[in-house]
Structures are given as structure tokens and as C-alpha cells.
């Protein structure tokens, strides 16, 4: 198996018209799973997640040539994905003319409607617990717990100080544990 190219190499290839598509495809393949799961944990539904995934990468295609290399590529990708998720949730709210709590309970219902849902299993309880969190806290918990993202990187994704993010993560983890132990 060929060794994976570094982000720097891929960006250089992307700038060349002859290798632009090939480089972009490699970038997609390199990051798609991480970004997909980040999105899926936010939106629960696969079809919604797929739509948002495509929108994310179309944005990346359009903006990548202007990407400033003073940040990590993956940080930038997570930032776009997170913003697209939040925009999607906002649009759902407007479409349904419901409150955010209705959207969240809708996400919980989607979890319960999954064909494999088992209320006794800890991993399903965890998903339900995550949906009880405010959306920003949900992102913070997901980036740290699932994606092992350092607070410094997270602060670039979310434009929030590392200290505030640490406090937010602690708060989220406690709330999730309380939910799991009491449900």
C-alpha cells in the first residue's frame, strides 16, 4: 500500500491544475471517515450526515486554493464541518418552526428509532445523553471524547478559549454521566 501523502504535499498537488482532482480525492479519502463520524454524531441520521458531508467538501473544493497554511488542514476541515452541522440544525429549526429543544428531542427520537437501538446498552445511552447537551457542548464533548482533539486545536475550530472549552468539556462529561446513571 502506498504511503499516505502529508497535507503539505497534497496542498501543493491541489494547486497544480493537472493534479488538482487527484489531490482533492486523496484529501477526501484521508479525512472523510473522521469528518463523517463527527457530523453523524451531531445529526444522528445518515442521510442528513451525507448531505452535510457533501456540502462540507464542496466548500473545501471552493476554498482550498485560498487556504492559509498557518493552521492545520484538519482543524480547518473540522471547522467547516462543525459550522455546516450547526447551520443544518438551524435550518431544521426554521423549517419545523420548532424550538431547539424540539430539534434535540427529534434527534433522540431518531436514536430510539434506529433498528439496532438497545436502551440497556451503554453506548446507546451515551448517544441519548449527548443529545441532551446544548449543541456547542455537544461539539466540544464529541471533539475531545471521540476525536481526541487537544484544547488548543479545538479553540481554533470553535473560536473559543482553551480554558472555556476545558470547562465546557468537564461540565458536559458530568452531565452525561448523571444522565447515564439516572436513566
Amino acid at each position: 500500500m502506498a504511503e499516505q501523502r502529508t497535507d503539505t504535499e497534497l496542498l501543493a498537488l491541489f494547486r497544480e491544475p493537472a493534479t488538482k482532482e487527484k489531490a482533492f480525492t486523496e484529501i477526501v479519502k484521508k479525512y472523510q471517515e473522521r469528518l463523517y463520524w463527527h457530523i453523524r454524531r451531531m445529526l444522528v441520521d445518515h442521510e442528513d450526515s451525507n448531505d452535510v458531508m457533501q456540502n462540507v467538501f464542496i466548500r473545501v473544493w471552493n476554498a482550498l486554493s485560498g487556504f492559509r497554511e498557518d493552521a492545520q488542514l484538519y482543524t480547518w476541515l473540522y471547522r467547516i464541518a462543525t459550522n455546516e452541522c450547526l447551520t443544518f440544525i438551524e435550518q431544521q429549526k426554521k423549517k419545523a418552526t420548532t424550538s431547539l429543544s424540539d430539534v434535540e428531542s427529534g434527534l433522540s427520537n431518531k436514536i430510539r428509532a434506529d433498528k439496532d437501538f438497545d436502551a440497556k446498552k451503554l453506548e446507546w445511552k451515551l448517544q441519548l445523553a449527548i443529545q441532551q447537551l446544548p449543541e456547542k457542548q455537544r461539539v466540544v464533548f464529541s471533539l475531545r471524547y471521540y476525536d481526541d482533539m487537544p484544547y488548543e486545536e479545538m479553540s481554533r475550530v470553535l473560536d473559543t478559549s482553551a480554558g472555556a472549552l476545558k470547562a465546557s468539556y468537564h461540565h458536559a462529561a458530568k452531565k452525561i454521566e448523571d444522565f447515564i446513571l439516572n436513566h
Partner: protein
Amino acid sequence: MITGRGLIDAMESPNEILTELLEIAPFLGRAGVLRAPYDIPMGYFEDFSDILMYRIRFEADGFGEIKSVSSPEEIAEISPLLAELKNKNLYQVPAGYFESLNTDVQLTGVVPLKLSAIPQSVKTKKISIPMRIVRYAAAACIVGMIGITTFNLTHHKVLDPINGLTTVSDQDMANYLDVDDVHWTTDNPSDLQTSTVDLSDNDIHDLLSSVPDVELEQYSLLLPEQKPSVN
């Protein structure tokens, strides 16, 4: 500057995340990192980049070099098989159908509307009513409705039709029935067909076959003079 390091080594060690979690939420920390239990369609990640590139190349505006292709060219590029099937019509119409269509329409008296008969523009007059007048009009309507309802409740007693009929003399009632030509029977037996069903003994037997004997006996006790006959 971007360092070029990969995603995985840019992330914090999972052990550090778990150690932190054990301090904040011991139960969650002891459970380890529980992956999201969602399913994804088979081959989703294998196909995703192809689908995405297809969308980027062909779908929307503003994505660089997008060729303007006709529908036949497009389908020929995507699927030559579908392109070949495009003009093969399985359905047939009777010979001369389309030629006779215009004549048929005219014979039935429905004349196709010519586009030239449609006025190109219809002049409309815009009337603006001050908002203040609209508010007064709405208030007047509400006051009017309350007034009418109050008047009806205080000045008109609601008549009970049954009690009212007890005060009508037999002669008046007879006159009303004669003058207004009220019929109580029909001369045409077919009018009653929907309410009459002829059932044979076999039909009744079939209908009642699923009813337990105990229930039939109880029913026959309620109707001592009309015992059901079930053989």
C-alpha cells in the same frame, strides 16, 4: 506554517483523554471510549469521493470548468446503455391518433385556447387603504358581532321544535302537508332497493354460523316471539 504531520499524531493520546475523563466522570471513564453504534451503508466511504467529484464536476455553477453538455451527451457519458434505451418507446398509440386529436377536441366543443388570445398584460389598479382605517374597520366588525350576538340572546327565545309542534292544530298540520306536497311513501319500488336485502335460509345459516349457541339463546330470550331459526 503547516507542519505536514498527519491527523492521528496531531491528536492527543487516548490515554490522556481517558485519564482526564476518569477524574471528571469516573463511571464514563471506566467504561472506556464507547464508539457511536450507528450503521452506515455498505461501501459508503469507498464510493463517497467518486460521488462527490461527480457532483463537483457536473452539478452546480461556480466550480471552475463545467462543460455545458446536452442531455443526450450527458447520459451517453454516464451510461451508454441508458443512452441507447432513451429513444426506444415501449408504448404504442393507435394509427392516426395525434392527427385526429385536434378534430376530436373541436367536435366536443372545447376549442383550444390560442396563446394570442391571452392578453399580454392585464392592467390592475392598486388601491391603498391607510392602516388606521383598516384598524377602525376591524374594531367596528368586532363591536358589530358582539352587538348582534347580545341582541339575539336577550330578545329571541330559542324555540324547541317539538314543543312548538304541540301547539299546531291538526287542521293546520293537514293543510301544510297538502299545500307543501310532502310525500311519505314512494310509488317507485326501485327507490327502496338499497334498503332491502333478500336473505335465504342458507345465507342466514352462514351469517350466524360463527355466533355461539349461548349467545343465540340469550338473544332468543330477549325476543320471545321472534326466535331465530338456525338449522
